[in-house]
């Protein structure tokens, strides 16, 4: 395996189908595999439905990543530090990004056999922190498609803006699509 982290495929009901080896097992019976379409480089997808950042969601996510800083949990602590409300952990935007990755993985023309996808890299570049109450829109652009050692590497950047159209954070993932076993 290239990396340990499976990319979330969207709807929970699709999770088993999306598991790498389950797909690998079924691919044995498949005669041909469509390679990743290099023409998706530069492709953008329409913005997904706006995501309203809830205070309890921030707290829930913060607990899940072992965060303890009170700025994630206590409105007063957040305000004392100059924020409008509780601040989301640095990796929280993955929750917003996920729906955009589902668009890419669900694009038949892209030819990504998502059962063979592993998460290679992840980055978050902020213009300002995400805080509870933000209404975020996200749209994904495929910034690069490369072939390397029989694998395809797809880099996709999801630009996340607030309700006024100002940039908040860009979440970039590199997905590795494994070639033939």
């Amino acid at each position, binding site marked *: 395996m290239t990396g*340990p982290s499976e990319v979330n495929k969207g709807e929970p009901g699709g999770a088993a189908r999306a598991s790498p080896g389950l797909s690998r097992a079924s691919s044995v019976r498949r005669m041909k595999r469509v390679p990743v379409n290099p023409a998706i480089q530069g492709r953008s997808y329409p913005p997904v439905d706006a995501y309203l950042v809830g205070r309890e969601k921030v707290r829930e996510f913060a607990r899940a990543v072992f965060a303890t800083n009170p700025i994630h949990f206590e409105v007063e602590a957040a305000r004392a530090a100059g924020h409008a409300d509780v601040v989301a952990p640095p990796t929280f935007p993955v929750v917003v990004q996920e729906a955009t990755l589902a668009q890419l993985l669900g694009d038949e023309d892209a030819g990504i056999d998502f059962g063979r996808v592993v998460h290679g890299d992840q980055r978050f*570049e902020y213009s300002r922190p995400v805080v509870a109450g933000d209404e975020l829109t996200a749209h994904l652009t495929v910034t690069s498609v490369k072939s390397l050692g029989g694998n395809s590497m797809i880099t996709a950047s999801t630009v996340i803006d607030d309700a006024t159209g100002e940039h908040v954070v860009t979440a970039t993932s590199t997905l590795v699509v494994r070639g033939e076993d």
Partner: protein
Amino acid sequence: MAATPALDSLTVGDEVASVRHLVTRDSLVRYAGASGDFNPIHYRDDVAEFVGLPGVLAHGMLTMGIASQAVVDWVGDPARVVDYQVRFTRPVVVDRQDGATLDVTAKVAVIEADAGRARIDIVASVDGKTVLGKAQAWVSLI
């Protein structure tokens, strides 16, 4: 809450955090719920085995999230983490009984005085083997 470190008090190579976390199956279920990533390789032994994995794995994004906390706690305000990236280099197998012990250390790697920021490099390891590569967080200390 920790006071914000002063940029001019930092030296490249300073270790700013060293913490150990126990990641259990409970942690994975909690993260699955919080993140919406319900891939069963993160909580079902039978599925993990069927797909040829060495065991149930932690979500890479969970490892990335936990690793960032060392920097957040040091810098005092999560909003000061302005850029954070990792490469997922090794799966974290979470034993059903013993979980996995994740060691995280963070050191000052680059100081940009004019920009008022520093790059903190993170080492995350399990049983002495690193699980993240190029784990770098830029923190704003203006």
